[in-house]
Structure formats: structure tokens, C-alpha cells
């Protein structure tokens, strides 16, 4: 690797590249052209040559903008023609966008899965009682609708990214579309909050009844503790029909394990949605800083 050879602490290949660029181009003219554009006055200039040596030609100067801006010039690799290189740059950006769309579709579908799981669990067990649980099940149902819709929209977007990328960009900029997607996002997030909350209720019930850690519960409970747990859980339920008098150890273990798994699943789904959507502004901000 030639880039590993050092002279006075600097890479030989890099300083060679700098010499080559400085002799080949009129840098002052380049900077003058860049500074003539009011949007990028004082932007830093970085040059990437055909051997992927990165040379900083000029640092960023905060003349009229506080946020760091850089112009990156990239030379075509030697084995590529100009047109081919141009096409590759275009498709490169599109490919990464396709991957992002696919990932966010997967997250949307996992959100739909989760909200359906909440609806499924809630409806089979509890008959509708007026008050809080009615609101809770209504939120669950609405979030299931929103989750399915987001999943379908995600599939459509992936297809649009493949078939008609420019059309997709146009749709993205529509005002009503942005509003609707934000509202759907809000609904699914509310559903996720609901599922975390319902898990929390059971965790608190378990702790109140047994005063033991989850590891100890998984190891097994005595007869009295199981009875206490069962009565505590029954306090939260309106339907006593069909509930056993005392859960067996195997049942408790299984339920506990399912609780933990559900909790992590909901956490993963929420964080997926956050990463794919709600953290994007931060990513943009961080990218701008470097």
C-alpha cells in the first residue's frame, strides 16, 4: 500500500496527489467560482482523486454561514469512462435510498405486527368494559389500522423507488402527504406506548404479589406465592370466568418469558421507527457538522 509510506509524518501518496492537483488546476480560479455562489461562500473544498486519496484544498471559512459546508470534488477512477462514472454516481445514491426505503418498510411492518399482537391479545381475553379499557382497545384498533396502512405505503414506496424515482420525490414534497404520514406515525407511536404500558401493569402486579426478581420467578415459586400472584393478577382482570384458581409453575414461567420477549419486541419496534424516521434530522445535522 503506497498510502502507508510516510514522509515527515505525511502520507507520500497524499502529498503527491496534492502536488499533482495544484499543478493541474488553477485553485484560485476554483475558489473564486465557489465564492461567487452566495449559497456556498467560504465552503471548504475537498478533492478525492482516482486512487481515493482525500486532499483538503481549503478549510471551511465561516463567512456568511455558521453551519459547516464542503464542496467535494471526485475524480473518476481510471478504469471508468466519464459517462459510466456519471451514471454510477446517480445510481449509487438511488441504491442507498432504496435500501433505506426497504428498511423503513420492514420497520413499519414490524410496527403493524406488534399492534396487531396487542389487539389480538386484548380482544380474546377481555370482554369490552366501559371506561379505560374501552379507550385502550380503541387506541389499539386504530393503531392496527395505521400500522397496516403504513406497511402498504412502505411496499408502494419501495416499488416507486424502483419504477419511478422522480415521481416519488414529487409525492414526498406534497403537503397533504407529509401531514398524513406524520399523523399515521403519531398513531402507531401511541399504540406502541400502549403496549409498553400494558406490560408495565403486569410487571408491577407480579412484583407487588411476589416481591421477587424475574430471575427468581423463572426459577420457580412456592404454593403460597403462586396463589398471591394469581389473586393479584385477577384484580386487574374483569373476567373471572375461566381463570384458574392458581397458576402452575410452568404457566408462570411461560407467561413471564413471553412478557419479557414482548417488552423487548415493542422496544425494538419503537426504536426501529425512531431510527428510520424520527432521528433523521439528527443524522442530517451530524452529517452537516463533519
Amino acid at each position: 500500500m503506497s498510502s502507508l509510506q510516510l514522509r515527515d509524518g505525511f502520507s507520500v501518496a497524499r502529498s503527491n496527489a496534492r502536488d499533482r492537483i495544484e499543478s493541474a488546476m488553477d485553485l484560485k480560479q476554483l475558489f473564486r467560482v465557489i465564492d461567487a455562489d452566495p449559497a456556498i461562500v467560504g465552503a471548504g473544498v475537498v478533492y478525492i482523486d482516482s486512487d481515493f486519496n482525500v486532499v483538503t484544498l481549503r478549510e471551511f471559512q465561516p463567512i456568511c454561514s455558521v453551519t459547516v459546508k464542503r464542496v467535494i470534488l471526485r475524480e473518476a477512477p481510471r478504469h471508468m469512462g466519464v459517462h459510466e462514472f456519471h451514471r454510477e454516481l446517480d445510481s449509487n445514491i438511488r441504491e442507498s435510498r432504496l435500501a433505506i426505503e426497504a428498511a423503513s418498510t420492514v420497520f413499519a411492518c414490524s410496527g403493524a405486527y406488534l399492534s396487531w399482537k396487542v389487539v389480538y391479545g386484548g380482544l380474546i381475553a377481555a370482554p369490552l368494559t366501559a371506561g379505560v379499557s374501552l379507550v385502550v382497545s380503541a387506541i389499539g384498533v386504530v393503531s392496527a389500522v395505521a400500522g397496516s396502512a403504513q406497511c402498504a405505503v412502505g411496499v408502494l414506496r419501495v416499488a416507486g423507488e424502483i419504477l419511478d424515482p422522480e415521481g416519488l420525490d414529487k409525492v414526498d414534497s406534497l403537503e397533504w402527504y407529509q401531514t398524513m404520514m406524520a399523523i399515521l406515525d403519531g398513531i402507531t407511536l401511541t399504540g406502541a406506548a400502549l403496549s409498553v404500558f400494558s406490560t408495565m401493569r403486569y410487571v408491577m402486579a407480579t412484583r407487588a404479589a411476589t416481591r421477587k426478581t424475574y430471575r427468581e420467578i423463572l426459577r420457580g415459586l412456592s404454593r403460597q406465592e403462586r396463589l398471591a400472584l394469581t389473586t393479584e393478577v385477577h384484580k386487574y382482570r374483569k373476567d373471572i370466568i375461566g381463570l384458574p384458581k392458581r397458576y402452575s409453575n410452568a404457566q408462570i414461567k411461560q407467561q413471564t418469558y413471553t412478557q419479557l420477549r414482548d417488552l423487548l419486541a415493542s422496544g425494538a419496534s419503537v426504536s426501529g421507527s425512531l431510527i428510520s424516521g424520527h432521528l433523521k434530522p439528527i443524522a442530517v445535522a451530524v452529517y452537516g457538522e463533519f
Partner: protein
Amino acid sequence: MYTSESAMRFRAKHFSVFIASIFLGTFSCALVLVLAMGTYLERADLNSASKWMFSAILIVSSLQTFFCLKILRGYPRWGAGMVLVFASCLLVSAPAIAYDPNFGLYASTLSMPLIGLYCLNSERYREMLQAAESIRVEKAAGPQPKLKTSRRQTAINNRLRAKSEKPFVVTKCGITILKWTGRALSFLFIVVVVVKLYLFCQGLVTGVVVGASRYGASRSYTFVDEPWMFALSMFLHLLAIGVCGLFLRLMLLLRE
């Protein structure tokens, strides 16, 4: 969570076929719309076409949810609604062959509702319908009177039940994985809460908030120009903080 035994058995057994039917419905609807985008709506105005498609998605998913809820509550006749969804997808997509669409897309669009119909017709789905109905009947009938048995018989029954239920083996490895995943998620959520709080405060102070939309390029909204979008974005940021906070509280509860 902790439920009656019949519900627990129902839940463990029938969830996979239930969720499969829902996802097949969603995907077939989406694929039909993709096909329509290339064929029927090729010349249509993009704005109105996307509005039309978005409302179609919303209508189909809410219809599907309604039918599925009815089925879960124990009315198997509403399964006909699911059949209607799949059949209409099939009917809409079939004539598109006149427009000479992409063959792979056309084939998958046709096969998706067919697989869905097969799923509805399968033995497991029928079992689910029956089980849901029997649960409803059981609930309507009220608590069953207890049969009096001798102590000896109860003991024998309990013994048999304990034998038949295989204990759920939780390996130490599984617990460790759960624990570390939980820690990683907690760390991520702490970061999210901090950043979101920063964005929220920034929005309150300066009146400009970065939009929290999942799709498209991120935009910022000002309170003066777009008050609705500003309020919506602020609300979404708050909601995300709330969800993360709930999760963190739960992890604190579980920590020992």
C-alpha cells in the same frame, strides 16, 4: 399476559395464521396499487393519483381491521369480508394484462390474493374461526358449575396435568441475551430522549422545529408560517419522549 386457559391456548395456537391472513391482505392491496400505478393510472395526474391510492390503502386497511375484529370476537360469518377483500384485489388486477405490464409484477400481484384465499380456506384458519366462536359461546353461557370430585381424583388430575405440561426451559444464555438487548435499547432510548428534549426546547425557544416525518427529506417548520405542521411535529417529539420514558421506567422496574 395472564389469562384464562382457553384464551391462552387459543392465543398460542392461532396467532400465526391470523397475522398471515392480515399481512397477505395488506401486501396484495399494495401490489395491486403498484400494478395500477403502471397500467391504469399511467397517464393520470400524480397528485390526484397519489391521493386516490392513499385513500384506497386507508379504506382497505380499516375494512380489513373491522372484519378481523369481528372474526376475533367470534362471528365467523365476517370471514366473507376477508374473501371480498382478496377477491376484489384479484378482480382489479386481472384485466391489467391488456396494458402489457411487467410479467414478474403481474404474476406476483395475481398470486398474492390467491395465496390469501388459500390461507382463508385452510384447515388452521377454519379451526381458528371455530375456536373463537366457542370462546364467545362459553363467555355468553357464564361460569360452568364445578363438578364435585374426590380429593384423590383431584390429586391424580393435578399430577397428570403437571406431567403433561412440559416446563418451559429458559436457558441462562437466553436470559443473558434478553438482558443485554434490554441494556442496549435503554442506552439508545436515553440518547433519543436527550436529543428529542433538545429539539423540543429548541422549537419552543426559536419557533423553528425540525419535522419528524418518516419519509422524504427532513424539513423544518416555523410557528409563523405553518402552525399546524409545527404543532404536529412538536407533538410527535413529545410522544416519542413519552414512549422512551415509559420504556426506561419499565427497564428500571426490571433491574435489580
